[in-house]
């Protein structure tokens, strides 16, 4: 009797795709944890703002990191991403940003930090034209001088 942690719940993406997840894994998402606490006896949650591919990744992250201690300190470094995490983030640019938004909505701090670090690393070392291409900025104007008229090294 009582809520066993082996209990599974079903998470539904915006397209209606269903994912069966262990309750304890799903609760790595603060948002889901709060929803489950607020609604007794619920075993299925609809997440109409989260797409299936992003949700799948979030679930994978939570599964992999389910034993991590919950940290309250933000991790301010971008050079300490583990191999598994790095691979999780190797997705087309659009998907990467969807995952960040999903991690933010679902309040999975570790994954949100990971997403931000990944994007930061993709900015590093690129020329303005390369950045424009990578992140699909379509603005025509060229800013001749950045914040400081400093010759850049690359």
């Amino acid at each position, binding site marked *: 009797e009582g809520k066993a942690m082996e209990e599974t719940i079903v998470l539904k993406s915006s397209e209606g795709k269903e994912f069966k997840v262990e309750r304890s894994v799903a609760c790595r998402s603060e948002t889901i944890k709060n929803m489950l606490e607020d609604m007794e006896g619920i075993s299925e949650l609809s997440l109409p703002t989260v797409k299936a591919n992003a949700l799948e990744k979030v679930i994978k992250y939570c599964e992999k990191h389910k034993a991590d201690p919950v940290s309250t300190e933000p991790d301010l470094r971008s050079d300490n991403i583990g191999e598994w995490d790095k691979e999780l983030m190797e997705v087309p640019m659009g998907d990467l940003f969807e995952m960040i938004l999903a991690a933010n909505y679902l309040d999975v701090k570790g994954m949100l*930090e990971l997403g931000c670090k990944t994007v930061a690393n993709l900015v590093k070392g690129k020329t*303005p034209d390369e950045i*424009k291409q990578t992140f699909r*900025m379509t603005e025509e104007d060229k*800013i001749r001088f950045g*914040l400081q008229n400093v010759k850049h090294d690359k």
Partner: protein
Amino acid sequence: MNGRKKNLDLKDVADSLSRYTKSLNAVHPINVKPLGNYYLDFVEGIKPIRNTGLGNFAWLLDEMILDILSLVEDFRDIVRLSMVSRAMYCFCFLDDIWKELTLDIFNGNFSFDRSWRRTFFTQYQRNKGMIGDTDEEEPLRFQGMYSDVLFARWMAGNIDLHVWAPNETIPRRSNLSLEEFLEEYGIPNKPVILTDVVNKWPAFTEWTADKLSKNYGEVPMKTDQGVTMKMNEYLTYCMQTRERSPMYLFDNDFGEKCPQMLKEYEVPEFFQEDFFSVLGEKDRPSFRWILVGPPRSGSGFHKDPNATSAWNGLISGAKKWIMFPPDRVPPGVFPSPDGWEVTTPESVVEWFIDFYHEAQSGSFKPYECVQRPGDLIFIPSTWWHAALNLEVSIAVTQNVVSTQNFMRVLNFLESKKNPELCRQFLAGMESTHPGILEKLKAREREIQSKRKRSMWEVVSEEKSSGFSFNFADSDE
């Protein structure tokens, strides 16, 4: 990641911004506007530049974009990013980014010059041995950039602080005897300003910025953002900066580093009891600080640790205070379950912009004042309080464990995961003041029973005349 505005929705943010736009001293340097301006501008044919300029970044919330930027550690990457589009330029222009870069790379070794961006480049070029023109380019100005986050950060650095000065609900007293103070404020645990204490100290005339600079210019001083700077360098910074969350000189070692200063003020007679002294100089928690800060520096809402009371004497400047009694959590403040850790906006000004109005809107009015030079304010134990410097301000503060708050302090120590400190304290009390523990406990029992009796009296009175519970004045 910065969870600053976690409980404010977009409409609240928009309301705060429009409420205070009349109190701005300046125009946004690169013409970023709040989201509220979007539709009016659009109708006039101004094209928004966010989506085309940010590309994939446009999907993210502005705070997230700033979080990503703070993970880009090389300033050259930020410069290159600023060249990509007008919208990106607006983000990279944010002075907070350059402050972080300056403190990360140069730590306390910089000379502040008007903005963090300028400060960064000046120091960078100086370190590289480059001489010459460090005047930054005139910032570009754009049309079509809307961001509540960017605008709010700028606004917090440029709003006229005196818009929050008016309310004075903390009593000002002079000529009080110790008994009077205890009876009216110490024992009931209520705030008061004493106006005839500080002006008698030598410090009142000796602790000017000029004299501090002359006497202690080379002494390294601690600030609240982890940076240590020489007094001179800090004072230069203090006089020049204009930002939303300035560094505040907050040094608990000034007595050891500048011993002469200890002779220039004295603990007022109302606060002579100092029970933590039984722990000895080395083991007692920090208990005295010198405070020097520019406008906009300050402390967000908190309760003083260990449940101590405190007094704060202002030498020069002006300091806005706002306080709530122990059981009234101020709006915008989210305490941990035990009530002692808080989540609250990191910039005190931002608390005022986002929540001051709400604090005024309830039936309960907070205790407020502007502390002027010569004023000494009493901060009662476990009261919520926040302070905002309206001008460059110099003050000294100490905290107090006395007969009046002893039980609260003891309860706090007993509940914390530090039984050692508690044990040491009790042992120290018994050896320095034998028999005092029994007296204090007896006093507490008497106070509690008086309180119970008076509640019962109220209840039995009410029984005959009608029904209303009103314990508004009991603060425990």
